[in-house]
């Protein structure tokens, strides 16, 4: 007796649980490895990073075994030159020779790393672990202003425009069958009886026949009285309103492009923006990005120009904030948009302008945006812009600021900016 079974359609991820167990057990190591992977390469290809290695000694499963030493006598195939009694030196460095016939006992494998691939999803999860979009849940709960209609079966009451014809007629048909059933059965019986009487030769004026005819007439009338459609047959399409979560975000990138911002600082800023973008992408379906660059005057530009054109001259930060404010009120003022602002600068600003910045932020921008992040890419002492911003941060929870010195600082800074908020 033989069975040939096609198992191909049955679950292929039988090992998923074991895989997940493995990841769970080595979470700490994998997180370290992911951290290293991120540091070691450009953040622009962060989403492709999937290969992770952790030291083999950590994942080793120890077993009793023999180590090299004592007497080993092994039989090997492929003798070409040796005679009995030949002596030769031990092969050095364990190359081909030392492993002869003892592959199972070799401890050399322990030096390598255990390398495996994380799926993109898993990788990003480790990357973003412990990070939470600040106040997002709160915003979603409080700011739901939009609803959408959705079908939800049928209802027995509603407006005439919602009558569902098919359902209503089906109901009517059912009712007619149900209500008319007994009468119809009786009618058939009576008609049968009448026919039998006739066959037996009864005349039209036979009292029995008359009575039967009368009854039949009565039943016919009753059946005709059953309404074709009745108010209880009516069914209405039911629609309910469900809250529609806002799934669109706009991210503003503001960067100082004055002469003091050199290429490496811009590069650092760029990584910061990308990281924020990646993070938002996990939460929102649709993200628009607006680039605003400024020196003494601000301009909205495309991405390429934003990062690659050079300007010179002084810095007036408030020009960018004015422009930001204008764009928000013109284009993103309705409730659909969650606005995030990421600003990068080297901290230079005209002295009296910083106070103005604080005022614009406090009075106009902060109430309108979900979150405002500011990174200062500098290794110098804090200047007046930093001081004024510190005051903003003190009064607004959704304002965060950090200092970055080298590209390697970005990731920790990012975590600091978006660390889990106590709820």
């Amino acid at each position, binding site marked *: *007796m*033989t*069975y*040939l*079974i*096609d*198992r*191909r359609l*049955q679950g*292929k*991820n*039988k*090992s998923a*649980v*074991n*895989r*997940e*167990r*493995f*990841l*769970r*057990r*080595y979470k700490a190591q994998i997180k370290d490895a992911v951290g290293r992977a991120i540091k070691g390469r450009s953040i622009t290809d962060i989403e492709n990073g999937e290969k992770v290695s952790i030291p083999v000694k950590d994942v*080793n*499963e*120890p*077993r*009793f*075994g*023999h*180590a090299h*030493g*004592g*007497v*080993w*006598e*092994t*039989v*090997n*195939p*492929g*003798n*070409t030159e*040796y*005679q*009995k*009694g*030949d*002596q*030769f030196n*031990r092969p050095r460095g364990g190359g*081909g020779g030392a*492993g*002869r*016939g003892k592959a199972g*006992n070799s*401890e050399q494998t322990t030096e390598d790393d*255990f390398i*495996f*691939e994380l799926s993109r999803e898993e990788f990003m999860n480790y990357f973003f672990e412990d990070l939470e979009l600040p106040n997002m849940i709160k915003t979603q709960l409080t700011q739901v202003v939009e609803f959408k209609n959705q079908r939800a079966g049928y209802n027995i009451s509603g407006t005439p425009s919602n009558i569902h014809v098919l359902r209503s007629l089906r109901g009517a048909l059912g009712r007619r069958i149900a209500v008319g059933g007994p009468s119809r059965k009786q009618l058939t019986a009576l008609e049968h009886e009448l026919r039998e009487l006739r066959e037996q030769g009864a005349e039209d004026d036979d009292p029995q026949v008359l009575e039967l005819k009368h009854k039949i007439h009565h039943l016919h009338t009753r059946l005709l009285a059953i309404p074709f459609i009745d108010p209880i047959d009516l069914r209405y399409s039911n629609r309910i309103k469900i809250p529609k979560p806002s799934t669109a975000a706009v991210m503003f990138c503001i960067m100082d492009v004055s002469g003091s911002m050199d290429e490496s600082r811009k590069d650092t800023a760029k990584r910061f923006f990308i990281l924020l973008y990646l993070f938002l992408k996990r939460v929102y379906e649709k993200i628009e990005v607006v680039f605003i660059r400024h020196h003494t005057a601000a301009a909205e530009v495309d991405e390429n120009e934003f990062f690659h054109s050079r300007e010179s001259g002084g810095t007036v930060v408030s020009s960018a904030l004015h422009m930001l404010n204008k764009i928000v009120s013109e284009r993103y003022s309705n409730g659909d948009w969650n606005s995030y602002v990421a600003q990068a600068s080297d901290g230079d600003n005209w002295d009296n302008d910083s106070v103005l910045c604080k005022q614009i932020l406090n009075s106009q921008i902060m109430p309108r945006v979900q979150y405002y992040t500011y990174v200062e890419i500098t290794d110098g002492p804090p200047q007046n812009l930093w001081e004024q911003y510190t005051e903003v941060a003190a009064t607004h929870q959704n304002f965060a600021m950090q200092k970055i010195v080298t590209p390697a600082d970005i990731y920790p800074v990012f975590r600091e900016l978006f660390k889990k908020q106590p709820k």
Partner: protein
Amino acid sequence: MPRDPNNPRALPEQSEWTFDLIEQAHEEIRRVAKKFGLDTYPNQLEVITAEQMMDAYTSVGMPVSYNHWSFGKHFLSTEKSYRRGQMGLAYEIVINSNPCIAYLMEENSLTMQALVIAHAAYGHNSFFKGNYLFRTWTDADAIVDYMVFAKNYIAECEQRHGIDAVEELLDSCHALQNYGVDRYKRPAKLSVAQEQNRQKEREEYIQSQVNELWRTLPRREEAQKDAAAPPRFPAEPEENLLYFIEKYAPLLEPWQRELVRITRKISQYFYPQRQTQVMNEGWATFWHYTILHELHKEGIVGDGFMLEFLQSHTNVVFQPAATSPYYSGINPYALGFAMMTDIKRICENPTDEDRAWFPDIAGSDWLKTLDFAMRNFKDESFIAQYLSPKLIRDFHFFAVLDDDRSDKLTISAIHDEAGYRYVRQQLAEQYNLGNREPNIQVWQVNTRDDRALTLRHTQFQRRPLNQQAHEVLKHVARLWGFDVRLETVDPSGRVVSSLECRREKRARY
């Protein structure tokens, strides 16, 4: 003879398989196998995808298995090397169960499917059914059910006691899995119903035994009587460490004992496979070779089919020389296939040398002789019995003596008249599991004082333990719950070194 197109049973010349064609090929193979007298369990062929093959790989070749991170690790590394194309997947996995389950991979061509059916469903299958080790030590009828029981039981334990507690315990059991085997005592038959019924009973009974052993309030008169010379425990050294732990570890909870038992049973089930690699693969390879050649002779398969088959066959039985960079030990397929073929040759066309070396089998009926060899040997004894001088010459076998007391390696024997017996003996020894694994047994338990457990490693050829031994010892200590010592003794019984793992004093959990 090339494929005969007029033969109604001839298989079409195509590489795509269909279910009908597999049925047809299987029917032909079954007929030929029957003609050669192969006795098998019923077959269950299952077509699976490459992903499913990787799944099957990782759960120790069982259709069901409990969950553990180490299987996940295995899966990740398999997946990685497969994705990168560093490694092809095995063509087949076959499970020693009744019915015998053989997996056919979707990607394979019709030829390969036929090869796998002949190899796994008739070669391995008949070996599982016939070989004395498998007959004695494994229970093909019950294993799948037992694995289902184990999976459910362990999942239940995870719910009751937490994943971490179960995982820790399984880690420790896996570390000792090779020492969870009875080498001489025949195990009882497995049966799910009985397992479940007896499990409760056993839990209570074992606990009561343990309590007796570790009772902290000794009866007064006994205590005085025995104070001078506490009885030795265990009375005889115990080779099955997991068994000993399951029965006597003082602090284990009943469910933990059950888990130890499960890993021990699984280990026992795989023990014959570890002892018959060369024979098992040799036997299966010999039969796929013989059966497919027979089909070719009958005109059922064509030359194209044979060429494809022979190409993968020769890859499988390729043996690189010891000096080759590809050398990684003796290929069990190569050695096994060569020996099986050689036995047939000795039966059919014996030379004078064969008549001198194998007077019993030279010129006998090869089917009977091979069948006898398959049934009654394991790798070690099979090689000691049947490796012929001709094969030693063909393989150019030579023995190298590596003694750490001398600075040079010595060639102790080669493939010449003086060396045949020596090489054969050495090669057989090489397949003796008792020599390959360190011999470690439970030596003594200090029942009166600190409850420390002493294990003894009896040295073989002065070989030291590997560096992982201390890690393993930690696992033993975790299971035992108290201090554990490992003494290494030389053959004269002198302790040459010892390892110790102290258990932190702590409250019973």
